[in-house]
């Protein structure tokens, strides 16, 4: 049974009211510029993508042969071109577009626009009023598919507004890994990606989520993400941005609702060219004995601007523990980093919140140490910088590691 029309129209009414509401952070974007709509047909396998699309997808960690993946979801511009659940995992999880899920399940009312406020700003409003799919992944109770689900949201044309709404449900006692790549196949594409993500981790569930963003100079990105974690559940988020972007602004929220719930954010950001990057993470500790950790590593090169935000908000009556670790390196005298950690205790008497934030160069002493072992200065800087970024993420192929090294070698010179 589909979701009720009544609920959908309530969502619409709220969205309409927020249509012109500016976001709290980031430059305001004129959405009327992005009205192009392109329908694309299905493909038989990921190998059926265009050469450009394939290359772009691979660079975000997508495995075209779907090896070591439990399933795949692929969207090009506004169309769902591929969805597949690996046979071996049938009965463990389901993958479809969110549009299909809304047609299929009336209980989607409990998830759709239930975590992210639809009237938060003009971007959430646009995503609600002009939704162009997005993935729905649900792993059934106590199921633990061995390999991750991969999803790729790709923009191939100019003036597209890709308005995806992603919903992940990890049922009780289940575990899921997801790798998402968001990318462009045309490096000069102008447009916007609006990604609404609502993830629900039920009692004792685990969600391990990795997102790689590969954008370009003319592209804007406004993700809006909430993760609700129930009792004993845990959420781990890895986010990687290593390519230029015109502007990106996101402040995902992990809402630790149940007792013993935990969340960890790992954020790796490399600012290139004149990218405007405003990224953070917010952890709300409401359940007793909840735990949060937020680690951000940022490098600002060229003329980039990076805001690295982190909020820890304690609301629990019981104990909770959360730490924020936010470090940055500025590689160019035209680049800027703003590290903005914030700790808030709302009457949480037993909450222990802490943070360390720092901005500073690579230690000369470390570079010299490596040089004395016969490693060139460039290699030493590259190795230490890679180590600083700490891209130790499972299921991320080696070439990403190589790619980042090349980027570092090209940009670190200025800092030497």
């Amino acid at each position, binding site marked *: 049974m589909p979701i009720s029309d009544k609920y959908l129209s309530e969502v619409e009414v709220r969205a309409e009211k927020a249509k012109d509401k500016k976001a709290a952070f980031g430059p305001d974007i004129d959405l009327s510029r992005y009205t192009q709509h392109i329908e694309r047909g299905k493909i038989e396998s990921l190998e059926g993508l265009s050469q450009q699309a394939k290359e772009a997808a691979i660079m975000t960690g997508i495995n075209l042969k779907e090896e070591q993946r439990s399933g795949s979801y692929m969207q090009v511009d506004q169309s769902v071109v591929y969805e597949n659940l690996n046979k071996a995992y049938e009965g463990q999880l389901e993958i479809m577009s969110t549009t299909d899920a809304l047609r299929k399940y009336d209980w989607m009312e409990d998830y759709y626009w239930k975590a992210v406020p639809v009237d938060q700003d003009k971007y959430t409003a646009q995503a609600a009023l002009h939704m162009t799919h997005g993935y729905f992944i649900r792993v059934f109770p106590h199921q633990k598919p061995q390999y991750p689900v991969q999803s790729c949201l790709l923009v191939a044309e100019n003036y597209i507004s890709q308005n995806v709404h992603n919903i992940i449900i990890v049922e009780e006692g289940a575990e899921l890994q997801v790798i998402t790549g968001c990318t462009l196949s045309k490096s000069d594409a102008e447009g916007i990606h609006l990604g609404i993500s609502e993830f629900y981790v039920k009692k004792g569930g685990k969600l391990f989520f990795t997102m790689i963003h590969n954008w370009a100079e003319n592209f804007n990105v406004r993700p809006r993400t909430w993760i609700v974690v129930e009792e004993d559940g845990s959420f781990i988020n890895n986010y990687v941005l290593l390519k230029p972007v015109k502007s990106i602004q996101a402040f995902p929220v992990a809402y630790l609702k149940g007792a013993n719930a935990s969340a960890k954010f790992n954020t790796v950001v490399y600012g290139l060219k004149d990218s405007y990057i405003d990224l953070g993470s917010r952890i709300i500790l409401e359940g007793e004995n909840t735990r949060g950790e937020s680690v951000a590593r940022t490098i600002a090169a060229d003329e980039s601007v990076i805001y690295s935000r982190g909020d820890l908000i304690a609301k629990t009556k019981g104990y909770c523990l959360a730490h924020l670790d936010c470090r940055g390196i500025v590689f160019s005298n035209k680049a800027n980093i703003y590290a903005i950690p914030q700790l808030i205790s709302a009457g949480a008497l037993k909450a222990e919140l802490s943070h360390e934030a720092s901005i500073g160069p690579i230690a000369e002493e*470390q570079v010299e*140490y490596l*040089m*004395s*072992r016969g*490693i060139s200065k460039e290699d030493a800087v590259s190795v230490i910088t890679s180590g600083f970024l700490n891209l130790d993420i499972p299921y991320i192929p080696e070439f990403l590691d190589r790619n980042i090294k090349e980027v570092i070698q090209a940009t670190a010179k200025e800092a030497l």
Partner: protein
Amino acid sequence: MQEMLNVEDLWVSVGDRQVLKGVHFSMNYGEINMLFGPNGAGKTSFIMTLMGFPRYRVEQGKIYFKGEDVTDKDLYERAHLGLGVSFQRPPTVKGVTLRKMIEIMSNDGAEKGKLISHIEKLHLSGHLDRGLNEGFSGGEMKRSELLQLMVQRPELVLIDEPESGVDIENIALVGEAINSLLGKDKVKDPKRSAIIITHTGYILDFVNADEGYIVVDGNLVCRGNPRDILSEIKKHGYRRCAECR
């Protein structure tokens, strides 16, 4: 035959402090030289200057290594000419693991078997995936330094206080590692050379040293048999060295 290392009238400062004051020093290929001396005398400064750390500013004098003037060469160039150092207190490099470091340093896999045996002998198997020196104990640092040098294989090894922070049981381990590094455990290996700084002299029980020097106030004084020097220091401290200049 020319000398392996020749230091002429070396004046060095760190910050605004004069740490070496006109050092003359030379050694032959295959020699092992010991440096003794009180804290703050300039021992570490001497070998760090030989290695080429830019913080140690050479104000006057020359350093010749294997006949080549290396005074103006950087760390990387000197490492490739055959100099290597085991730090007294190496810096911590978070995010770069010992395993990674060894991988980068070893350019071919030919010696892999040997490497594994070195790792095991030095009890470092459990440290390979930790950041360099991150939370390492004093002894672990020294062992990790020696392991890295075994991969680097410098012709002249500069070892700064290999026994400091190492507990008694592990001293033998460190001593054997140094011998193996210097090829003294095998008859056939070409003899490598070393300058070893020692505070306690324990290391003399393991390494067959040729010459000893005492460093006092930025100068090398009292050249002699290292064992004689050690027993002299044990009896009278460094008091008489000042007169010896």
